[in-house]
């Protein structure tokens, strides 16, 4: 968002009024996306402070995280009276205040996506499961089979982007279940009780982190114009220099 975009090369075609870019991400989608990014980071960062407060926590989520846990945690044990307690308090303070912003932003995104009809690009259809296998194999360079037709998002993207929204909702609900296990005890019971709700909550966090890494890799791989479309909203459908050649997967629809 803060990166300067270079002026498009061959931009002298100012007299050309042909359509060169098409709206991909609407304004509300872009705002909620970029607002969600720091909010989710704050939620994970403050959530880990709460998670790490219990030295004897029986949860273990893979060697990597446990390794990280011990690396970060030992200094706090040494400074127990100073560091650890204060950090937990700060973690809780951030988590329970920013949780509202995360929730409101998420609700705004879901409502907008629903009301605007954008969900049609996003929700999986009956082809998505099959498509996503082809796409993943293709992206892992395992199989070079021709890719199936796609709209704005391919099958793998549809599944992933929908799942991540569902995970966001689950994170909020399990969070509420462990934040207010008495006042919201129906919810807590629904998630299998306090301890189980906690496990689900932390598992979702791991899921967010995995998604984040994959998302960054895929965005890097998709290239600059794809990235800038999440900033400007518009994705090029015609190269600035050779305006005659469309580069998208749906040239017929684009060439108007």
């Amino acid at each position, binding site marked *: 968002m803060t990166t300067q975009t270079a002026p498009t090369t061959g931009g002298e075609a100012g007299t050309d009024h042909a359509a060169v870019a098409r709206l991909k991400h609407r304004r509300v989608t872009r705002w909620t996306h970029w607002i969600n990014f720091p909010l989710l980071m704050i939620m994970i960062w403050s959530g880990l402070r709460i998670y790490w407060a219990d030295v004897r926590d029986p949860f273990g989520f893979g060697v990597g995280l446990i390794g990280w846990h011990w690396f970060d945690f030992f200094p706090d044990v040494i400074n127990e009276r100073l560091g650890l307690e204060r950090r937990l308090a700060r973690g809780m303070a951030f988590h329970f205040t920013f949780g509202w912003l995360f929730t409101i932003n998420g609700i705004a995104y879901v409502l907008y996506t629903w009301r605007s009809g954008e969900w049609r690009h996003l929700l999986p259809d009956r082809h998505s499961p099959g498509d996503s296998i082809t796409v993943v194999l293709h992206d892992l360079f395992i199989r070079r089979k021709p890719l199936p*037709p796609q709209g704005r998002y391919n099958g793998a993207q549809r599944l992933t982007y929908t799942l991540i929204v569902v995970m966001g909702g689950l994170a909020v609900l399990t969070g509420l279940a462990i934040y207010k296990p008495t006042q919201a005890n129906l919810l807590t019971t629904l998630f299998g009780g306090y301890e189980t709700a906690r496990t689900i909550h932390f598992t979702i966090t791991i899921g967010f982190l995995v998604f984040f890494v994959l998302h960054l890799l*895929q965005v890097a791989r998709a290239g600059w114009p794809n990235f800038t479309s999440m900033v400007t909203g518009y994705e090029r459908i015609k190269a600035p220099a050779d305006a005659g050649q469309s580069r998208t997967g749906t040239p017929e629809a684009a060439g108007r």
Partner: protein
Amino acid sequence: MSDPGPESVPEPLPASKRSDADEGRAARYAALETAAPTLDESALRRQTRRSVLTGGAASLVALLGWRWLQTGPDDNNIPVTLRRGHEFNEALWRRLSGRTAPTFDRSRSSMLRVNGRHGIGDEIDLVAWELTVLGPDGSEWGRHVLADITALPKVELTVEHKCVEGWSHVVTWGGARFSDFAALYADRLGSESTDYVALVTPDRGYYVGLDMASMLNPQSLLAYELEGEPLTQDHGAPLRLATPNKYGIKCIKRIGTIQFTNDRPTDYWYERGYDWYAQL
């Protein structure tokens, strides 16, 4: 950067190699985009400039806000904005409160760990112990020995005890409802009662404050038994507070003084950055 082609989008198959089904799908997907607005070259440039400036400004505001939050004034050891956040949550949940925590079968409970010794560092003579009750103005309303509390109707509760640190443990408390104890002072309290209750250890090393509604919850106990046995000194003998509706930090061990008050009492962990309400 000069390559505008969105590489995420695969090269389309030549039309001749597509099946009819794929054609149909491609057309359906394409139809979704026909209504999407398009821009010409100069409009795209304007849109790009506008977005980058807006995004840059928004990022700057967010960064400054974050810095201010981290380095700005504190209120009892957390940034003042987050303290207001806690208070907002308290105001909200006070309206929604009044439920009781789920209870469990006695067979599921087991001995609780000892997690804190604030205010109970040294052992005391349990026989000499007395509970002092103070009124809002600090005047003494009464003194009690343990027999006064055990004379009240005994309640056993098997509930999940929860720590701010994250762990929880199913335990069985035995004791008297605080509401039954407060009834001893009904005349002095009047119909209005007080807004808060302050509880302090005999050495004043640990102190908690709770709102009256939470204290009068039927699950708020003045507990003298844990797992069917009299409390040990580690667990707050002879009398402690036990409630499944607050975090363990509110369940003060070895109560020395109980004060009915209308001024919000301070609280050991509140002063150290935790939420005053600490409700579950």
